[in-house]
């Protein structure tokens, strides 16, 4: 899928990623095409092993594709020099790795960690306070990771990715170790960065996250199985027997005609059964 739109900042064409091991080759991504525009939060969902982390690692310019073309913020990840990609990651990409609670510098205080990253991105001091406040760690700025809980450490990792508002934020399951309140807080922060003009791509299994996405990509066996716009609302009718009639565009989201209904306070959510895993 050739990308011609000038607004597109990240594009993938026939993206392939193959991992080799002693037991053979694993095809993590099999010809994936994708275009991401600034100002949107995209959630990548899918079962374990579907290629989410591989895709995010590539989008974060931390690996090169085995085949296909990947352009991130104007750089061809496959062809750019190591130094060029390193500069890209250093200044323009915020990355939150999987199990990010341990992806912080253990010997630095929270504020120092952000200060270090901010210095590379040319961010102002206010940005540090803002980033820490955004993830609810304003009162923990002087603590080292050893004094923070696992969830706080994960939020610190997110704050490090957000500081200086990089052009691209990639987060691999950034709310995996968080309770609902903090997960919402982190999502708010990510959405705010997206609203400010950054591209935000995250992976998640959590429907509380996916339903807040501007765009939801579902991966299966290394290819996009579906793509939908997030946070859509549509009118539906519940008949006298309690049956819910979905409009056709939403009905397409349930190809096997099975649905899981979740009630949470005043809210009722519908999702496909596969998300249970």
């Amino acid at each position, binding site marked *: 899928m050739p990308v011609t739109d000038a607004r597109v900042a990240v594009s993938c064409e026939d993206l392939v990623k193959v991992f080799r091991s002693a037991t053979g080759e694993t095809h993590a991504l099999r010809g994936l095409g994708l275009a991401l525009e600034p100002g949107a939060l995209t959630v990548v969902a899918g079962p374990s092993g579907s290629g989410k982390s591989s895709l995010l690692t590539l989008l974060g310019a931390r690996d090169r594709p*085995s085949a296909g073309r990947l352009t991130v913020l104007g750089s061809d990840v496959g062809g750019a020099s190591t130094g060029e990609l390193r500069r890209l*990651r250093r200044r323009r990409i915020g990355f939150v790795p999987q199990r990010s609670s341990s992806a912080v*510098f253990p*010997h630095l205080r929270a504020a120092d960690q952000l200060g270090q990253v901010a210095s590379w991105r040319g961010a102002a001091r206010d940005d540090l306070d803002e980033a820490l406040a955004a993830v609810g760690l304003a009162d923990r700025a002087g603590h080292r990771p050893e004094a923070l809980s696992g969830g706080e450490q994960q939020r610190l990792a997110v704050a490090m990715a957000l500081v200086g508002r990089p052009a691209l934020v990639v987060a691999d399951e950034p709310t995996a170790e968080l309770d609902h309140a903090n997960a919402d807080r982190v999502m708010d922060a990510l959405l705010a960065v997206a609203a400010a003009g950054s591209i935000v791509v995250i992976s998640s299994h959590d429907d509380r996250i996916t339903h807040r996405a501007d765009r939801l990509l579902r991966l299966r066996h290394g290819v996009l199985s579906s793509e939908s716009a997030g946070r859509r609302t549509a009118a539906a009718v519940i008949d006298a027997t309690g049956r819910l009639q979905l409009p056709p565009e939403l009905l397409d989201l349930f190809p096997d005609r099975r649905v899981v209904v979740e009630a949470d306070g005043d809210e009722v959510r519908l999702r496909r059964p596969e998300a249970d895993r």
Partner: protein
Amino acid sequence: MWWAAPLRLARTPGWGALVLVAVTLFVASVVAPTMFVQTARVTALRDGLAPGAGGPYGDQSGDLRITWDGVVEDIAPIVDPLAAMPAYGAPVVTAVGVGQSQTNKPVAAANGATSPAVLWYHDGALPALGATDDEGVWLSTATAGALGIGVGDPVKLGMVQTFLGTKRMLRQTVLAGTFDTAPGSQLPTQLAGLPDADRWFLPHDPVRPAVVTPLAIVGRHTFDRFAPKVRESPLYLADLRLDPDVTPDEASAAVERTAAFGNAAFDGTTDMFRELADAEPAPAKVDVISGLPVIAGAADTTATSARTQVGPYAVGGQVLAALLLVAAWVLLGLSRRREQVLVSGLGLRPVELTLLAALEALPACLLAVPAGVLLARLGVLWAGPTDAGVPVDRDVVVRAAEGAAIGLLLVAVTTGLAALATDRLDRVSRLGRARTSVPWGTALVVVTAVVAFSVLTVDTARRAVTPLTTALPVLVAGSVSMVVIRAVAWVRARRRTRSRPGTPRWLAARRTGQVAREVVALSAVVAVALGLFAYVLTVERGVDEGVADKTAALAGTATRLEVVEGFRARGADVAVGPPLAGTTVVWTRNVGLPPDETGVPLMAIDPTTFAGVADWGGSGDLDVGRALVPRLPEHARGLPVILAGDTDLAAGATTVIDFDTVLSVPVHVLGVVPAFPGSEIDPGTVTVVVDSRRLFKLVTPDLDPRHRGATSKDPGALTSTVWSRESVADLRARLAGADVATDGVVETAAEARIGNGLVASTWAGGYVLALGAVVLALALAAGLVLALRLADRDTVSDVVLRRMGYRSGELARARAWEVGYAVATAVVAAVLAAVVLVLAPTSIDATAGVPPLTHPRTELTDLLWLLGVLAALVLLAWLLGTLLTRRRAAAEVLRAGD
């Protein structure tokens, strides 16, 4: 990050301690050879000076004596340079008349009587006697009494010539005082007890050399004035004592200055030359007497030999320590894998990481400078040439700083390379790229074979100092370990465990995990380290025993004293029998051994006393010869002989020995041995050992020392030497008591060890032992890491298994079994590697020119050491497993995920 880096290691004390220990070991390994060689030089110098300390001035004494034989107008041009001589004390001047002979007698005369008295001056003598000025003469009360004079009376001093009539050459002075002589001495009692008084030059009566002529003690001006006028032959001596704590550098400087002093005496442009040329009664000649040039030169030679011999082991130690440091830093990096993903994601450049690592390691490296010096000092004190003291000078500190800098560089480069390797961007994973795998195992075996061939084809004499010799044990241990570990893995994969299901041993046999490669790698490290440790034990023992063997071959016994005439012409009992209990007499000369051996040393010994006095080495290799000694008196077709050294003759052979082609004695070879006590005293490819009593019956009368009229000057006469295990002083004292002359040449085992590089070999053996301690520590550390890694691997499964019913103790025992399997495999590999290295042609003999050859030597204790390590590691693994399993809370383990 930059500010936090230097203190980062302090926040993780365990890792900080590991890095500090590793870099300290590296610094110690860098600085230890320098300290070792310096200590060797100091020790060799002190050992060289010790025998002559307090003894007569001469070749064996480091003290300096300058003599000149004339009265000079101004003594300053001679004495002032001596006073400025480094390493020596102030010169003490003695002046004495040495003109007495059978016809010239120095006398004091008064009242018509004369009494022997020779002019004598010594710095400080008159003040010690109580004199207030230099005027007059001090005579002994006996001399004054013989002359009938008292203090203040006139007295004449001078020479009386009795050749062809009596001629007196006397000058008058006054008796300034009298003194009582010390018992058995002509020195005043006030002087006899002063330090070095026994070394002062005193005038001996030429007719009776043991008798000292009575002294006429005068001031120097009186001596200078009187000596030429009374036709006395003046001799001036300036004695300088060497500083007992002299360093080799100071000794070398002193030798240079002494040589320069001697040259100046013959340099016409110097004031000294002019003074000596104008001396009375005739131009004077300067003599320099000191053994320091020879002793300092020997010390330097010994130190050089030590450096050469220690060199390969020093390099080995440095490489080992560097590997340890790199391994410690790599392990630290592995513990920060998650952080490395973070820094890669944040785009940190490898060069930044390199500098950060350098900053982080900097405090440890700075601390390692004093710590490394201290460790090296302790090591050299423990295993080095002496425990008298190890110098720590500027060179050592600079070397330590260089070592720390290299350590810092190693850490930085390791980090930089690791950063490049972990930077996934540098591993382009394009489709179709071929996988390359290096056959490391095969490569190791091939390299080992090539190095072994290279080393073993080098001449035996140079093999020990060939650089590749250091690498050979490591490669052999590595290859054998690899083969054994693979073989054990192959066997275990095909053999079903017989242990009961559910037991710790059954669990251990079934456990496989993510750290399998790490287990193999750590097992290999333990195996190589233990293999090297076992080999080091055999090498150290072999070197020690080899030095003892070679010393025995070179010296024969502790002390040998040549007795020129004492045992001749006095019958068989004196010539053959020992002069004292605990001694034996050995007669030597060179003979011919057909068909083409000439100049073959012959040792004629007394079989009844020789074996008890001779030194038979440390390994037992010389015991073959010892067993043959009682057979020397046997009656056979020829004179029974033992041949020591390389010869084509074999036991049972018959031949002849030629005494200068005049006499041929048929001999019967009892046996051929590689070396025999004293067989290397005189260089030769082979030494013939015979029973002296039987030999004397066969030789012609002119060669028979028992024969009346036999002297050492007879053509072809044998030389007699007393052998004893006593010290030189004790032997001399006992021989003197038995009326045997003790002025013959003395040679000791200690001198033989120093002069032939054997002392350096002993010191190198000590260095090897220190190296062994390091590899043992490495083996223990690797075993400990193995136990820790297995415990880490089982963090989650332990929780699960406990919930399945396993007890903590059982899980700990299962891991102890695993460690036990791994270390037992390592021990087997270590034993095999040591056996291969011990059975291979020797490569540890740095003094192969002196037989017998030095080999690594095994003992049962070597195996016990390895088994001890196995037991210790299993115990440690069990303790660690128990502690860690109990300490980890199940909820925390499961929450952490990995």
